[in-house]
């Protein structure tokens, strides 16, 4: 090889070296810096003016989430795909992630995406689920985070409180922004009115999680169940951890939840009531919604719940007792439970947990008396023994039970 060629090759080597580093820089500019600029601009234009960031506790919770590798099973990124949107809600926008140092998008979903975890579960549920996941979800493979607690789920340490506070921030900013925020974002986006824009902004509600309880919502009237065995299996797999295998509200998870899971054995529920609660869940309690199950399965579950009822018929109370009960009810109970007992009194807007609708569910006489005497922990139902005497309590218990329609008129009953 001539010296000239050697020199030329040396030059080529330098050019190639510089070019090689150029390749790397090009990749960072094209796929890191430039998209970053676009995303920054999107954030600036689409974000609410003063989006809610993280409090100190929430930030600490985020650090717990990060160090435990939560993001390696739970993504925080809803993709522009119908399947993602149907299961979790509106796709993640750039401005929603502006406080995420560092991002926790994840690349594997063993558990569900958590971008819109806010408002989906109660703090009790989270504490118990972190302490002992399989007590609530028998087939879960989530690790138990015992070290965040002082020996029991009811005694969370600060780290557990921080973590749950952080979980409640996921998706919060966009929900707080509301329809005005969505309109602002859509305008700021200045994006073509294409399929992606439709996906990004037209999902209502923003949090579409099928397990999220909602206070008001249409629900399909469940058809009469055809398969009692299926209902029993579904109950055992999904409901028994809280409500207990015989429905007495004494499942392994029950003691950690406030309010306690309903004792299904000492209630009778109309199919309408069960359709509502299975479809919409029960806001303010750990009863999530079950909209991810098919209507057929839900009706089988509802039938299984009805079959657990152990409420015995009692001797009909006298007219005098019912009259006394009616007077006591009108004087004390209508603000919450409504004049006609449908649980829609004037104070309902102020209450986290919906008052009982006596027209759709009936407690046993003993359970009714107990509720009035002792109140319901975790709800605004107070003990009434200082206001009502024993006769009045008995009378009003009979009265509210009488609001439940006769068995023969209940829908869905065989």
């Amino acid at each position, binding site marked *: 090889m001539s010296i000239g060629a050697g020199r030329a*090759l040396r030059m080529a080597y330098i050019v190639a070296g510089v070019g090689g*580093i150029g390749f790397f820089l090009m990749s*960072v500019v094209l*796929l890191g810096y430039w998209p970053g600029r676009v995303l920054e601009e999107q954030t600036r234009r689409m974000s609410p003016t003063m989006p809610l960031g993280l409090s100190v506790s929430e930030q600490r919770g985020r650090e717990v989430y990060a160090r435990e590798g939560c993001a390696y099973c739970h993504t925080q*990124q809803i993709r522009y795909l119908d399947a993602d949107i149907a299961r979790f809600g509106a796709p993640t926008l750039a401005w929603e*992630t502006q406080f995420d*140092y560092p991002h926790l998008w994840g690349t594997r979903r063993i558990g569900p995406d958590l971008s819109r975890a806010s408002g989906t579960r109660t703090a009790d549920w989270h504490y118990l689920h972190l302490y002992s996941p399989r007590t609530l979800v028998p087939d879960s493979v*989530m690790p*138990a985070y015992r070290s965040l607690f002082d020996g029991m789920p009811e005694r969370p340490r600060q780290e557990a409180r921080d973590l749950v506070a952080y979980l409640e921030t996921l998706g919060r900013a966009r929900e707080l922004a509301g329809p005005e925020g969505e309109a602002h974002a859509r305008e700021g986006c200045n994006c073509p009115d294409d399929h992606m824009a439709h996906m990004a902004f037209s999902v209502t509600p923003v949090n579409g999680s099928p397990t999220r309880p909602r206070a008001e919502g249409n629900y399909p009237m469940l058809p009469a169940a055809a398969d009692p065995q299926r209902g029993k299996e579904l109950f055992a797999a999904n409901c028994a951890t809280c409500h207990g295998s015989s429905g007495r509200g004494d499942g392994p998870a029950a003691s950690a939840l406030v309010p306690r899971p309903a004792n299904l054995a000492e209630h009778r529920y109309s199919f309408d009531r069960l359709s509502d609660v299975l479809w919409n869940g029960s806001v303010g309690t750990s009863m999530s919604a079950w909209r991810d199950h098919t209507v057929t399965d839900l009706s089988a579950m509802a039938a299984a719940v009805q079959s657990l009822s152990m409420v015995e018929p009692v001797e009909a109370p006298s007219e005098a007792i019912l009259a006394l009960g009616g007077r006591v009810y009108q004087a004390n109970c209508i603000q919450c439970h409504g004049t006609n007992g449908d649980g829609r009194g004037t104070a309902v807007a102020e209450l986290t947990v919906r008052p009982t609708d006596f027209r759709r569910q009936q407690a046993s006489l003993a359970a009714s008396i107990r509720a009035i005497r002792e109140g319901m922990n975790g709800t605004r139902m107070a003990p009434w023994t200082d206001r009502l005497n024993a006769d009045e309590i008995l009378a009003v218990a009979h009265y509210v039970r009488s609001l439940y329609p006769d068995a023969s008129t209940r829908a869905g009953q065989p």
Partner: protein
Amino acid sequence: MPPGVEESTPRVEVSLVTAHGLAALITLLASLAFGIVAAIELLLPDLFGGVSWLSWGRVRYAHTQGVILGWLGNVFFAFLYHAVPILSGRPVTSAPLGRWLFALWNLAVMVPGWILVLAGISQPLEWAEFPLVIDILAVAGLVLAAIQFVPPFFRRGVESLYVSSWYVIGGLVFTLLAYPMGNFLPEVVPGARGAALSGLWIHDAIGLFVTPLALAIIYYVIPAASGRPIYSHFLSMLGFWLLFFVYPLNGTHHYVFSVIPMEAQISAIAASTILGIDVILVVTNLLLSMRGSGFIPADVGLRFVATGTVFYLLVSIQGAVQAQMAVNQTVHFTDWVVGHSHLAMLGFATFAGAGGLVHMWQRLPGVRFNSRACEWSYWLLVTGVTMMVVDLTVAGLVEAQAWQSGAPWIESVRAARPYWLIRALSAIPIAAGFIALLVGVTTGTRRDVPTDARDVAVDLRGADRLRPRVAPATVEPA
């Protein structure tokens, strides 16, 4: 010095080769243990009763960092101590520097990194889980490595660099650039913007660190073990430059259908497709270079490398396919991708690393070598990797199907369980294979002949030669 070897053939730092080689195997076994714990915890989540340092997330962090930095980092360094003097005709920069690098990499990066991650001090970024303080030490280690291994090439006539040398220089220099981008920037660049950078690093870790150095080993071992030069230097250089052009442009394919601008996503998908085609080119050249060595080469080092090459082809074609939107929307987030990364790291890179290790151990003076154990290792690992990757690929499709059906989430977890069991069982042949590899390099007869430069005799050099030529007669040591 054996006859026939150039007078200038420099000294190989044997003690550093063996030190890094053994550290590689020890960190490999530790990383394997973390992986096994994580695999079993998916089946028996309460096995360790909620002990925080053994919880799934933390051992998952320790597993991947151990594999890429501990096992692959050490085995690459071992290979470089063996190969750089032969490739460049110069000794590495400094033996004392090598001792510092060894101590820094293993005692200041790996051990404290693992302890911190398990203690809960980490960062939640994939392939970047060691905390920032460890990242600083790791970058220092990469700087030392670049100082140690790159200058010998500059001091030699650069016009006669063999393709392995290009991959070594490229890998070390690019990793030095990419590592800080992936480990530091997402801490200061939030959310989607940070994710765009993380996506780049996830692919740069494999594309700019693991792949170049693994290919350097493959390109080195094939001619050195078979005694025949590479089929085409031209194709190998074309492959090299194409790889370095398209590999860094792949990263965004980890976030397809995200809010990251669609143009960036599509560019990355296009680059992934070109990469797949380029790898076909590279592997064709490699396979042609192995003509005459048999379908399953008799030389166990070459056998590892040959199988690593096939895994490289498979994983790259799979990668190009799964980057396509139609496929990605189904398999992304599932165990399919976990299978893919094991095909890359455990199939391609580990087989290349093991092949390099076995190859150099056969040629190092004063070390024990047990060829039978290495053969066992090969077959056990082939069995384990195949079992695991096939299983996880099917698992991914099953999970995707459960998600698409709209069934409750937990159904996908239930459906995955039998596959997770098979995955955990695949750890048996894999663990046995790695233990056999350790046995292979620590037992058996001890080599006494100082033959550190034996394979120099094989024509590795000559990047200027653009056509295949017959190797000069292999010179056996006296």
